[in-house]
């Protein structure tokens, strides 16, 4: 009997030990962050700017004393190892007591794979690039947050901008990468076009494999179809390859091209003027709001000095995510009298927060989904830069293009009307 009681007591202590993170903790020596991004392979063209921004922002935060006096120590995980490797690394890092927040991930596929794990392990996970609208769909997430917006407002914004700029569009072709992000974007973009202009015809839909080095056949197919508009959310080296291969073949002059992630290649490939590009959110470092923010100008200057190029929107997303995490810690500590917050207190602070970022404000809803404004424009020559910049911009309010909590996103898009689109700001209105 005594042995049984002792064993029960030990079991109870073990359970209490598991529950410890729910109670405020003593301040650690350092705050471990697991940061997931692509540091190798074709996707590194997008992932490395994120890592570079993380390095710089963490350096700046630590130089100012860290978060609540605690320095940040990042551990980077290369998503190029594949989902199984990413999951294994996530589990490993979660097992270390020092790691208290995960900044994950870049790839939509990895975001979706890690979300249930985050809930199971009760690990606060902030999706720095988890745009896929499939994340957080059920509204039940406690530990997964996404402050940088999602694919619904991102791609509806492109449809609205395109129709405002080119109201006589009749045919559209799509070339997107063959995975969740590419297919989701096509679904959303087509749904928005159908709602706003049902007569528009999609004449070609191509989904080349991610990492394809050669798009010559796809380019031939697109030019054969002769669409008014070519829409693409190719990214990373895939986008660079596509632009380099398509431009000499006249695709940019025969069709209006929309490159959803085109801002990431402005400094790398000579995009012609008039290409519709955006930043999947508000992360354009040259936007009026960004240029009016002293912290942003300092960050941009330091980034250029350190890395030899200006930050692109993945960099800004990562930097904004770190500011979001910092703000959550500060809010949680303010609420609990200055003690180092538990994971539960941290996620409570994230939910419902409104956090100023380098380029605007991110608002987190009760379903953990974040709302940010959407900036879209076209490439224009700049007298001050050796590369094209974004001009004729519009800035759509974050909540204007976002379905309500619990609402089916595609169903919501189908309710949009031309009158709604007409009520939104016009291209060139954001100065």
């Amino acid at each position: 009997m005594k042995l049984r009681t002792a064993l029960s007591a030990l079991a109870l202590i073990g359970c209490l030990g598991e529950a410890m993170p729910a109670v405020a903790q003593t301040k650690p020596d350092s705050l471990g962050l697991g940061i997931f991004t692509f540091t190798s392979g074709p996707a590194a063209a997008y992932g490395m700017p994120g890592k570079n921004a993380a390095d710089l922002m963490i350096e700046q935060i630590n130089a100012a004393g860290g978060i609540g006096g605690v320095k940040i120590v990042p551990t980077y995980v290369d998503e190029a190892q594949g989902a199984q490797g990413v999951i294994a690394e996530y589990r490993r890092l979660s097992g270390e007591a020092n790691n208290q927040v995960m900044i994950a991930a870049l790839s939509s596929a990895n975001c979706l794979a890690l979300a249930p794990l985050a809930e199971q392990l009760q690990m606060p996970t902030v999706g720095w690039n988890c745009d896929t609208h499939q994340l957080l769909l059920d509204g039940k997430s406690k530990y997964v947050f996404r402050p940088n917006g999602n694919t619904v407002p991102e791609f509806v914004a492109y449809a609205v901008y395109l129709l405002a700029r080119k109201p006589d569009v009749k045919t559209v072709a799509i070339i997107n990468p063959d995975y969740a992000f590419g297919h989701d974007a096509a679904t959303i973009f087509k749904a928005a076009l159908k709602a706003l202009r049902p007569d528009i015809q999609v004449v070609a839909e191509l989904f080349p494999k991610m990492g394809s080095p050669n798009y010559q056949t796809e380019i031939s197919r697109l030019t054969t179809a002769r669409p008014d508009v070519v829409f693409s959310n190719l990214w990373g080296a895939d986008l660079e390859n596509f632009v380099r291969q398509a431009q000499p073949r006249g695709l940019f002059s025969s069709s209006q091209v929309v490159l959803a992630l085109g801002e990431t290649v402005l400094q790398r490939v000579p995009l012609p003027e008039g290409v519709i590009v955006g930043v999947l959110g508000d992360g354009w470092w040259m936007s009026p709001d960004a240029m009016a923010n002293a912290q942003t100008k300092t960050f941009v200057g330091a980034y250029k000095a350190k890395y030899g190029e200006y930050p692109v929107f993945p960099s800004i997303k990562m930097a904004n995510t770190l500011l979001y995490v910092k703000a959550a810690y500060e809010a949680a500590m303010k609420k609990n009298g200055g003690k180092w917050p538990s994971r539960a207190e941290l996620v409570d602070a994230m939910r419902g927060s409104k956090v100023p970022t380098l380029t605007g404000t991110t608002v987190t809803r009760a379903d953990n989904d974040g709302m940010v404004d959407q900036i879209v424009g076209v490439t224009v020559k700049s007298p001050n830069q050796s590369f094209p910049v974004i001009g004729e911009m519009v800035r759509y309010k974050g909540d204007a293009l976002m379905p309500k909590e619990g609402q089916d996103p595609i169903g919501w898009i189908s309710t949009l009307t031309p009158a709604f689109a007409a009520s939104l700001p016009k291209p060139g209105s954001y100065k």
Partner: protein
Amino acid sequence: MNAIIPLALDTLSSAALIFFAAVGLTLVFNVLRVLNVAHGSFYSIGAYVGASLCLFIVSRQLNPYLSFVALLFSAVLVAVILGPLIESTLIRWTYGKSEAVQILITFGLFLILEDVQRIVFGVQSLYEDAPMRLMGSTAIGGIVYLNYQIALIAMAVLVVIGLRLLIKHTRYGRLITAVVFDREMAQSIGIDTNRIFILAFSLGVFLAALGGALAVPTSGVAPGLGADTMVLAFAVAAIGGLGQIEGAALAALIVALARVLAIYFAPSLDAVAPYAAMLIVLLARPYGLFGSITARRI
């Protein structure tokens, strides 16, 4: 009718690159009777060396036409260095061994070469299109094509003819034919089979590296290129019949046509089309289009 010209040109230009990737594999199997799983790595190494040399030429503002020479030179360099080295130190140990052992050893080589590429060339993508820009473009049937793509088709035809002439009309080719036909007899009449093996393997490496280098001006180079190329090369070699050079050419056309037709008419099948073609051919002709059953000597 409007679609026929782009279909034909896209098929031929895709087939050219696929042929370069596969012909070396089938040549090596023909002579050495080794199925080299690492063959795709030679393609990607050729691409990396070609891209690196072209980037060097552009960065030093040398004559841009030197980039054409650089592409050819990179294939020669890769073949001269890696061909004899790998054949004499690793491939030679697989002769006469079972296919399973050959595959395991060459797979290990593939993994090593993939890591070597990452160490030497880094993990970022490379792109250099100077040769493509120099050659300009031409509108054919209302579609703009790169003159470089058309040049690739001509290059592939030249390689097919060149290999045919090499095998049929040169002393080296006759020696290879003798070794292929009866290795023991060739040795017994004094043919240095080791030298033939080195030369044949190096030629296979050269062809793969040439394909990779020639692909650079119209494609990017990134980690993983070797693996993708290897899978496609195997499909082509299987369709054509292992050891059949003309078979590799026809098989490359079939695979390219399957992929191009998928992109134009059924894009969702684009990734599987080449392998579906392989399956169909092998069901009808298990040894490939030009392959045949060979008696095993006991």
